[in-house]
Structure formats: structure tokens, C-alpha cells
């Protein structure tokens, strides 16, 4: 393409003005919610099948999207297929609403589907998320769409998808158990940071996408529908509401969530949320904060060089870090924001029930301890 093919020059001084100048001619010819109706119908049909067979990987066509596969194309297709004009949409990237990818996905949905967007978990109807489940309890009128890079939990132990499909068909998960056994041999406990293998409804072994272990208990018997969509691998699977989701573990080596001994969020002071380590010395807080949880190592390694200086709750600004430049902050930025103004805000503040079981900090035992 030569320079003369372009009708007029696009201003390149700012992204917004560039998009502004293109907004009229770009979207005119597009169908509602970007995808054509056949595609959306196919995706919805796959979602329905996935709901009917919890944990089973259902293939779908996975169209090309205006960004590279592996950047959330599966999640976008699932979201755009279920969004309607009345819906409110939230996108989380590794706990944060502010990442470039999350902002762009939100913008795509706004432009093409005309939906409202929000960063407040409790306001959203559809939440597309990458590698986290929100701290606030997700309710029965909300749908979570999780982006999935690797669909099959068994790929860790066998790279052959054909062999793994046969294993799923026959519920033959011996190899995964050996993997866990060897993990305990090596580490003394099961040390899988993310993508923790879970049994869905006692039948299919599922890769819950790279959420930290912290979030795995939230899948169990939840009120919300979880849709897992992989664009690159063209598979959709789901955990319907009130489905048993059990992380694999031994009777005498139980499943454990990440531990943050003596750590509190540097911004809001929470001690009962999933924290990520931020290193102010090398990078800005925003970018590390959103990346910290990728392998969960930020959190689980946390206690090693805890120099006991964290008793100071003089957090407030966040810019003045500890002496070594490391801080711990909430990974879920939207909830952290709310906690800043209301430090005691419970995760189920928006519900009128008080028996909600939503992962660490909300179980019956935890509640007994901290009831006000």
C-alpha cells in the first residue's frame, strides 16, 4: 500500500484524536458487537453446550479478531456474543482495570456494542477477566468470562492432545496425580502457583485458567456463571452456578491458598486480599502491580525477605515505599479503591445475605474470627 492510497492523513500526535478521526468510517459497516450474527450464535451455542457439560472443552470456530490470538480473543468473542445494549461491561487484566489491553477491550465493546463500562465489580453484568476472579462476591445475575491461554490441565503432564482427550473421556487422571505426588516429594506441599488442576462436578479435570490458587475456591458452588474461552485454542468451557469445583489434593496434603504472613496492602491496608509485590525501584507501581501475579510467585515468595518493617500502617500515599523499594498492594485495584475510603468493607457488602462463601477470608471459619 502506498501513501497515496490513504484518503487523508491521520493525525498521529495522540491516540484519541487518531481514533476520533477514524470513528465515523471505521465502525459504520460493522455488525452490532463487531461479530456477525452467525458467529455470535455459534459461540453462544458452544457456551450452552459447555454449561450442559461442566468442565468439558467445547470447540468453536474462533474468528480472527482485531488483535493477536493470545491477547484475549477468546474472551472477547465470548463477551461480545453475550453482551446486549442494556449491559454493563467490566474488563479486568490481572486484577487491574487500567491496563492497555483491558482499556482497549472495553473500548471495543463500547464502540461496537454500545454498552456501558464500569470498573466497579458490583455494577457489571458481564466481567471479562484475565487471570483473576474479583475479590467482591459475584452474584447470580453476573457472568464472568475468563481468558484462557492453555485449555487442558493435562498438557502439563502430556503434550499429546489426542491422548489427553482420551484421558478426559475415560476420566483417567492418574498422570496428573503423579504430577501432584512429585510436587509434594519436591516441595513438601503441592506447589502449583497458577492453573491449579480442579475437578468439575466430579467428572472433568479443568484448567481454571492462570488464576492464583487464592481464587480457585471461589469457583466452587458459586452463584455466578463462569465461562472460560480460549481464542488461540478455539475451546470454550464453563462452570455453571452451584457446581462443585474441587482442587485436586491429597487427603494429608490439602489444597492451600497463597499466604501473606504479616503483609498488608500498602494502599488500603487490607490483610485479607490477594496481594502482589511491587518493586518501586525498577518499575512504576501500576505496571508491576498488574503483572505481579502472572505466576503467583510475587505473592507466594513474599515472606522471604520480610524485614519486619511492615508494622507501619502509615501507608496513605503509596509513593514512599519501604526502605528496599518493595511494597505489597491489593491485586484487585477496584476493590482496593473502595477499601481506601472504607477499610472494613466486607466482600459481600452489596448482598443482603451473610452466608456467602467466596474464597479466602469469607469461609465460615474466617467469618467467625472477624465478625464485628
Amino acid at each position, binding site marked *: 500500500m502506498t501513501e497515496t492510497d490513504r484518503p487523508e492523513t491521520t493525525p498521529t500526535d495522540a491516540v484519541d484524536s487518531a481514533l476520533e478521526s477514524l470513528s465515523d468510517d471505521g465502525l459504520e459497516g460493522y455488525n452490532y458487537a463487531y461479530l456477525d450474527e452467525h458467529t455470535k450464535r455459534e459461540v453462544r451455542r458452544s457456551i450452552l453446550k459447555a454449561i450442559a457439560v461442566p468442565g468439558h472443552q467445547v470447540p468453536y470456530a474462533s474468528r480472527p479478531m482485531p488483535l493477536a490470538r493470545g491477547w484475549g480473543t477468546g474472551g472477547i468473542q465470548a463477551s461480545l456474543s453475550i453482551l446486549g445494549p442494556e449491559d454493563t461491561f467490566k474488563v479486568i487484566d490481572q486484577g487491574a482495570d487500567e491496563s492497555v489491553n483491558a482499556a482497549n477491550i472495553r473500548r471495543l465493546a463500547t464502540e461496537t456494542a454500545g454498552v456501558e463500562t464500569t470498573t466497579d465489580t458490583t455494577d457489571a453484568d458481564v466481567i471479562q477477566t484475565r487471570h483473576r476472579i474479583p475479590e467482591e462476591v459475584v452474584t447470580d445475575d453476573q457472568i464472568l468470562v475468563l481468558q484462557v491461554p492453555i485449555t487442558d490441565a493435562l498438557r502439563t503432564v502430556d503434550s499429546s492432545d489426542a491422548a489427553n482427550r*482420551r484421558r478426559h473421556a*475415560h476420566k*483417567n487422571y*492418574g*498422570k496428573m*496425580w*503423579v504430577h501432584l*505426588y*512429585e510436587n*509434594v*516429594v*519436591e516441595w513438601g506441599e503441592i506447589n502449583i502457583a497458577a492453573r491449579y488442576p480442579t475437578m468439575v462436578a466430579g467428572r472433568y479435570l479443568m484448567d481454571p485458567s492462570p488464576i492464583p490458587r487464592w481464587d480457585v475456591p471461589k469457583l466452587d458452588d458459586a452463584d455466578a456463571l463462569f465461562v472460560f474461552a480460549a481464542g488461540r485454542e478455539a475451546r470454550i468451557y464453563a462452570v455453571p452456578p452451584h457446581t462443585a469445583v474441587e482442587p485436586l489434593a*491429597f*487427603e*494429608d*496434603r490439602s489444597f492451600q491458598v497463597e499466604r501473606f504472613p504479616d503483609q498488608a496492602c500498602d494502599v488500603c491496608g487490607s490483610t485479607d486480599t490477594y496481594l502482589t509485590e511491587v518493586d518501586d525501584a525498577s518499575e512504576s507501581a501500576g505496571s508491576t502491580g498488574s503483572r505481579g501475579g502472572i505466576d503467583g510467585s510475587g505473592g507466594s515468595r513474599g515472606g522471604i525477605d520480610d524485614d519486619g518493617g511492615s508494622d507501619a500502617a502509615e501507608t496513605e500515599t503509596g509513593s514512599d515505599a519501604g526502605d528496599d523499594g518493595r511494597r505489597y498492594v491489593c491485586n484487585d485495584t477496584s476493590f482496593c479503591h473502595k477499601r481506601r475510603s472504607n477499610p472494613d468493607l466486607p466482600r459481600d457488602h452489596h448482598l443482603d445475605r451473610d452466608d456467602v462463601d467466596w474464597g479466602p477470608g469469607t469461609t465460615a471459619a474466617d467469618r467467625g474470627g472477624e465478625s464485628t
Partner: protein
Amino acid sequence: MSLLEGADLTKIYGDGCESCRARTGDSAGTNQCPVCGSVVACADVNLSVAEGEVLGIVGESGSGKSSLAETLALAADDGGEGESGSRIEGEIRYAGHEGNLLEVDYETRHRLRNGDISLVHQHVRDGLELDFSGGGNVAEKLLSAGWRNYEAVRERVRSLFEETEIPVGRMDDPTHTYSGGMQRRVQIARALANDPAVVVLDEPTTGLDVSVQARVLDTFRRVQREEGVAAIVVSHDLGVVRLLADRTLVMRHGRVVESGLTDRIMEDPHHEYTQTLINSVI
């Protein structure tokens, strides 16, 4: 009452034709059908093993021993169609199961293979996951059978290692770092993990030096007697079969040419081929 019985077992690689059986075998001097080119790995084999008994199968390379062993151990994963276009016919009866074992579905086959009939493969790579630890390979059998208590699994693996004389200290090393003899023992430990009724050993000592062979065989013979497990030992080595087996089948070109008590076969071989075999070894 025999524990495991095979009747008219036949395994053919290739399309097969009407003259396959008639034009192969000992009398024809080949196992490849001259009409269609299919290989008749074994045909019309009848055998039985009683509880606690050891049956030996000897024969030269290519006589169908391993094909027969894999058939008996239900090793083919895809049931009837088999791998690389093979076809299995005949009947296997097992005391712990109603009906023909060759016709069971995948799950039953998997359960039988996991608990009742184990196979010690000729090639280590077929039987073990070399990247897993030795202990992990043995534990896989237990975990597949539903063991969910880590310490119990550990304890069982440790005792199996002791029983098969593998250094317990090497339990958590990757299996590819083990010596050939140890890998063979890990396979035996794995095969014994769920207290099977029958163990099929396919060439348990090939590729091992003589002193290690002797120790592996001693170990297996001791464990076999202690546990009272029945065994089918396939070997080209008459010495192995003489040491282990109560009764022996001699195979050639896919057919059983002679069978009887091991002593009788060794001292008084009837078939011409058996006579040659024994003369050439002893």
C-alpha cells in the same frame, strides 16, 4: 480351575486373507502370508495359567512371543482395531471377570490392567515415564487405583522398592538416571503395586549383564512365591524360563509347536525345533 485362559488367540498385522492361516506357521516355515503379505504374529494359541503358576513362553526372535504377551496383558489401547492395523481374534477368559477380555470396553480394560493383569514391557520406554521419578512411576499405579493419601502412597512405594531391591534413596530421582537393571526392577515394582493376579513379563532380562540378570530373576522369583502371583514369562533365553517356569510353551512362526512341563521340555524335547533350540543353548 485356571486363572487365565487363552483360546485360539490370533493376531494378524495387515489386511489378512482366507489363506493366511493355512499358508503360515511351522509347517509353512514362515509367518508372512504369501498371498496378501500380512504377518500372522500368532495364531490359534491355546494356553492357561493356574493361580500362582509360572508359564514360560520361549521361541526365537519374531516367533510371536511379544505379540502374544501384549495380547494377554490387554496392552492394545484401542480394542479391536489395534495399533498399526493389527487385528486380534480369539478369547481370553479370566477368573475375575465374566466374558471375553478381548471384548471389554476401555474402562474395564483399564481397570483390569491397573489391578489384575500387569505387564512388564520389553522396552523400558513403553512401560515407564522416564521423566517421572522412579517412585512416581510406581505411585501412578496406586494413584490410578484411587489412593489419595500421600503418606500411604509413599509407604507403599517404599516397601515395593525394598521388596524389589531398588535403593530406596534413589526413589525420587528421575527414572532416566537409573541403571538398566534398576529400571527393570521399577517396572516389576510397578507391576506388583496393586497386588495383581497375573504378571506378564516380556523379556525381563534382555540387555542386562549376567550378574544383574541373576539378581533380577532371583528377586522376581522370591516375590512371585511370596505373593503367590501367577506369571507368564516370555523369553528367548531358555535359562530364564528354566529358572522361573513350571510349564513352558515353545513358539515358532507364530504357532505353539510344543508345550509341557519345563523339565520335560528341557530333558526330552519332542519337536525338531525344540531339540535344536535346546542343543544350541545347553
